[in-house]
């Protein structure tokens, strides 16, 4: 669990959004993957894809279902909207088109490709900063996290005072957002703050 690499990822994402990139890649590690999935869940990233040295095929260039099929699908959904969530082995909407991305067998050549988001000509992810440092890791309990999410300082960590600020904590239940940690009453090592 190298925080040095995480620090590189943080500054890389800031630089990428400043440069208004649509897609960028970071080295793969379990920590990075879980954190990026957390970021995607919070809505900072549009996509997280494992791939090789070349970027994955964008959605528009992937194989799409035939327009007639799409129309049929829309009609079915209009009649029975619950079919959007199909049960096992029964899909009245037809077979789902799945795009398979080639992942190199050599782990050193794998990259994690991230889709960055922009809204009103402004990047959604603007700032991403490490809280625990490679030389000084910070563990917080759920009480302290509660104070921090209420924009108070606790355990030498500044509160989440910026509008829409998020903090990610690595716990024994995985990497969670600080507010979720408070809800589930678990503490852990704080990784980074994003806003």
């Amino acid at each position, binding site marked *: 669990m190298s925080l040095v690499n995480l620090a590189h990822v943080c500054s890389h994402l800031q630089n990428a959004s400043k440069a208004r990139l649509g897609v960028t890649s970071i080295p793969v590690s379990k920590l990075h993957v879980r954190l990026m999935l957390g970021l995607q869940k919070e809505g900072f990233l549009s996509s997280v894809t494992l791939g090789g040295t070349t970027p994955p095929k964008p959605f528009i260039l992937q194989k799409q279902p035939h327009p007639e099929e799409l129309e049929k699908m829309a009609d079915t959904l209009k009649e029975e909207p619950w079919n959007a969530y199909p049960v096992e082995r029964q899909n009245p909407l037809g077979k789902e088109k799945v795009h398979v991305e080639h992942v190199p067998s050599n782990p050193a050549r794998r990259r994690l490709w991230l889709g960055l988001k922009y809204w009103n000509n402004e990047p959604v992810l603007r700032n991403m900063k490490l809280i625990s440092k490679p030389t000084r890791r910070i563990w917080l309990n759920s009480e302290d996290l509660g104070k921090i999410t209420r924009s108070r300082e606790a355990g030498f960590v500044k509160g989440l005072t910026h*509008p829409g600020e998020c903090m990610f904590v690595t716990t024994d239940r995985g990497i969670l957002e600080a507010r979720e940690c408070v809800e589930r009453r678990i503490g852990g090592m704080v990784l980074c703050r994003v806003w």
Partner: protein
Amino acid sequence: MSVCRPARCLFSKTPSLPKPTPLHHPRSFHTTLPRPARRRPHYPNIKASDLALLNAAAEESYPKYSTSETDLLRKKYTPSQIAAIKAAESAIDPRDLLTQGQRRTDPWQLSYEDDLAEVDPVTDHAPKLKPSDIKGPKDFREANMVERDEAIAQIANENLAKMYPNGVPEGQLSPEEHRKLEEAIEVAMAQAAMDPRTVYYSSNPKAVESLADPRHSVVLPDLPRIENRVARQTRRLSTEEEEDPRQKQLLKYLGWDKEKLRSIRVKTLIVHGVTNQTRMGKIRSLYYLTIAGNQDGLLGVGEGKSVEPEEGRKQSVMAAIRNMRPVPRYENRTIYGDLEKKVGATKVLLCSRPPGFGLRTQHLIFEMARAAGLQDLAARVPRSRNKMNVIKATWEALTSQKLPDEIARARGKKLVDVRKVYYGGSVY
């Protein structure tokens, strides 16, 4: 040098040399003035002996009425009025009058030294008459045509008599005089037609008279125009007020009226001289930076520069009003979360604060927050404190805030405002 000399010096006294007086603070460590050794009371103590003197002085300057004076008063006033005067005088201690009383010297002072013989239209109530003051029956009805014509003729005659106290001119008249007379008759007739005495008829002539009496009217008479030097000088006519073409243009641009423009709070925060070096020499001019705000979520910053000081200031004021931009405010008192903005080497950190915190910021940001209508704010300027850049950075930060709704929309999240749910929605 002899041996006994130092001994003589030791044992001898030098009465001519004064001893240095021991000082409590031989050296002052600060620039504030030292407090006097004995604290003086804020007000002079009044001793019993002084009080006797005060009594005597009061007795002298505000003496009681002598018997001859009361006799004189009795001639002029009724016993009840005299009793009122005496009660009023006994209510005020002459010693208080002497120690605290002051005479007004301002031009708007009321003439208090008055024998109350005349009704002053400014200080006194206008005289009023009650319906019971009308003697005789108070019946009336609407006048018919004949009565109305009679009344008009009579009142017009009265009015004409007022206009010509020496009698209406008769015989051969010059065209000028003739025209004047005709005009006067016309005015008299018009006034008579408007008179309420012509509309109603009553068998009691006193009741008819009361219709035109202002003492019976519910409408108070107009206050008289004060005519003195100060009033004349301070009086302003609407024609005297000059129209600024720049202001006119601004009003047209904003679509506002003058009243709205007057409600804008404008303050010039920075003034300094600048020079332009040309081959002919230096051209000095003045730079102005002004902020404008309506104290309700609008804030503008404007700059102006001119050789003429007043011109530059006006330029900056107009630019500030034209540049006004909305400042989003949380609960109309503070900002949405912390803000950071960097302009040049100046960085401004603005922090939202709970209600009642106040504006604990440096003076420039304080003025801007006041103009924008923010009440709770904390700020830090950790780096360069260049005044112009501080103002510009604060303005940019305040006007380019990201709202929670917008952030939620950008992240594809659903946001619900629960402030309206708690405490029955009475909290904002």
